[in-house]
């Protein structure tokens, strides 16, 4: 059962990610990326990580993608402009081909390296309940990782101020 679920979610994630990269219209890309994030949330559930799955849906598919949608609608640029020929020969069709070859090479390398890790069978049984426990995650977050957690709040404050300053219309 969980075998089928894994392959269904993996298929959805890979196909929708490929379509995100392939789409001309950024609006469709954002919608497809939400589908990809949903599939990843399903994979987190299969990995006994319900907290991460819910965070994935709320933070990624909810907050970050709404931000992207706002910007896509605000800028209203439905299609990609062709690169002016004067810029560089590397950005033309030849450069595209080099990029495709490099990406395929990276995919082959990463898949080869990852499949050499070994099969790695997940342990089953009562000990695995500790992984899915939200209480344990909260305890670790507020004790062992408390400094990183507080630093994150400063990071978000800085990002918020930075975004407001950058996107502000300058007065003349």
């Amino acid at each position, binding site marked *: 059962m969980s075998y089928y679920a894994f392959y269904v979610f993996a298929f959805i994630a890979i196909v929708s990610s490929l379509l995100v990269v392939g789409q001309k219209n950024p609006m469709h890309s954002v919608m497809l990326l939400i589908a990809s994030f949903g599939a990843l949330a399903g994979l987190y559930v299969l*990995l006994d*990580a319900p907290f991460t799955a819910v965070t994935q849906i709320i933070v990624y598919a909810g907050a970050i993608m709404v931000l992207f949608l706002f910007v896509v609608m605000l800028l209203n640029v439905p299609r990609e*402009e062709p690169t002016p020929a004067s810029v560089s020969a590397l950005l033309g069709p030849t450069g595209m081909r080099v990029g495709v070859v490099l990406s*395929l090479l990276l995919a082959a390398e990463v898949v080869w390296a990852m499949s050499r890790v070994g099969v790695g069978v997940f342990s089953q049984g009562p000990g695995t309940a500790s992984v899915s426990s939200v209480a344990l995650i909260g305890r670790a977050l507020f004790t062992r990782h408390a400094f990183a957690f507080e630093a994150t709040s400063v990071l978000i404050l800085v990002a918020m101020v930075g975004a407001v300053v950058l996107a502000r219309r300058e007065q003349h």
Partner: protein
Amino acid sequence: MVPLNHYLVLSGLLFAIGTAGVFLRRNLITVLLSIEIMLNAVNLTFVAVGRYLNTVDGQIITFFVMTVAAAEAAVGLALVIALFRHRETLNPDAFTSLKW
């Protein structure tokens, strides 16, 4: 349950797709979306290995990666808006003022 290396290969593929998007696309918003795909691929690795080692640390670092991704998206999109206001385009090849 599906063994660990299936998850690792899946996240490797997703990471390569995200890299291809950064290489190939000429639209700043799609480039940012591809970076999100790459971050998600790494998150999947963290959670899968955390489950394999029976520890919550994988999920905790995923939490931090999500926070950083949110901050990155906010600042990145603000930069995109500011650049679009100056040049009326989203093509990254148009922004060459700092090129030597």
